[in-house]
């Protein structure tokens, strides 16, 4: 006797909030925002190198709100939000991603251990801080390739399609990023 089909699981509170937000409930969208802002913010900081991360975070969630009615649940909401945020970044920085040799800094107080009131850098020997700083200093194209592929797990082809460039170019940018990071961390 074949197994009975699994009963549909009861909608979770998150599903309720998605449905409500899709119908225009801003309070429900706030709960979705609170649940996912950490992940989207980490992406924004790393993609921008820190500069403009706050603006990108706002732009991304405004765009997520606008596109939410089109979300059909084919993926997890967090993954979908993530992809929207990536696209917002790539659209806004498309011309900058083609430029070479731009070194930028991470100004985000959280990532550098800065007390937002005092504004001092805290010396932190943690190697994660070193890697975050090194990522922030990569040229924009290499940084995007590394963040999207090695940290966020997108495929070369997905990154290429999102940026409108060849997959071979993504591979080259990724190789460059890794080389620069290894050199930077060793020096």
């Amino acid at each position, binding site marked *: 006797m074949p197994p009975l089909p699994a009963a549909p699981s009861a909608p979770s509170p998150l599903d309720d909030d998605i449905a409500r937000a899709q119908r225009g409930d801003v309070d429900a969208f706030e709960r979705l925002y609170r649940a996912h802002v950490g992940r989207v913010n980490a992406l924004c900081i790393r993609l921008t190198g820190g*500069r403009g991360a706050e603006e990108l975070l706002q732009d991304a969630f405004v765009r997520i709100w606008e596109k939410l009615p089109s979300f059909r649940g084919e993926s997890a909401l967090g993954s979908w939000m993530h992809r929207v945020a990536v696209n917002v970044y790539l659209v806004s920085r498309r*011309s900058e991603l083609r430029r070479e040799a731009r*070194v*930028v*800094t991470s*100004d985000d107080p959280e990532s*550098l251990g*800065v007390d937002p009131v*005092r*504004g*001092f*850098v805290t*010396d932190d020997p943690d190697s994660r801080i*070193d890697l975050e*700083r090194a990522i922030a*200093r990569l040229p924009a194209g290499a940084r995007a390739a590394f963040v999207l592929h090695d940290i966020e797990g997108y495929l070369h082809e997905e990154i290429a399609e999102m940026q409108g460039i060849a997959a071979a170019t993504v591979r080259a940018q990724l190789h460059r990023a890794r080389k620069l990071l290894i050199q930077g961390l060793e020096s």
Partner: protein
Amino acid sequence: MRLRLLVMLACGVVPLASLPAQQKIDRRLPLDPNGMFKFFVSSGSVRVVGWDVDSIVVTGTISAKSQFYFGGGRQGVKGGVEGDGVEAMADLTVKVPRRARLWVRGGEADVRVDGTSGPLDCGSASGTVRINGTAQEITAETMGGDLVVQASPDYLRLKTATGRVEFTGGSEDGAIATVSGRVTVRDGGFTRRGRIETVTGDVRYEGSIGAGGALAVDTHAGHVDLVLPRSTNASLVVTAAVSDLFGMRSMADPARAPRAVVQELGGATSGATITVRSFKGRVTAASP
């Protein structure tokens, strides 16, 4: 100076307590050429100067009751002066590697940055900020103090509330915002993207816009004066209570919202746009 004070003290003119009490500062640490330096001064003045040595040197004086911080490694150094009001007066000069990434804040202090080329983020609440150099990324903020920038960064973000903004140079991507402070842009302007917003501050823009670029000026009540080169090739769209665009005058019906007036400069074939909107103010456009 000291002799005069002693004489005045002897004559009972200057109370003993008024003699200045200060600490001399002379500290140095190594810093890589691309290292990061963060510095905070609560009041007084700090001048940051770029040089071609891989170290940071802080010299000057701080008041006796201030606290001075300074420490870090080759990739990052932090420092600063803390205290309250006149008790934390500082008069410091900081020499940094020219390409260092800088974050400099003055609570009420004046901040001056000269000759650096690394990314720069600086500000003061009520002090004046002056920047002169070749930094490619500049972010500067004040509340009541003025912002005076002479540079040509690719990326520029300047904000004040009541202070004035003077930007001399060009930028690929610039945004300037004030509430009532006057904004003056000269000798270049924005090539790819420029945005100027005020509430009541007047705006004077002497510069150009690059092919395909976009300059937007929005103000509630400020007057906007554009001085555009004769070679300007752009669509000029102006919405204002009163406008005088290259001799063409128009005045909005006071009973209605102002309407857009459009001029196609140089044929407007480059794709560049200059959009100016002033709810209550006057907008003029002319060539030098």
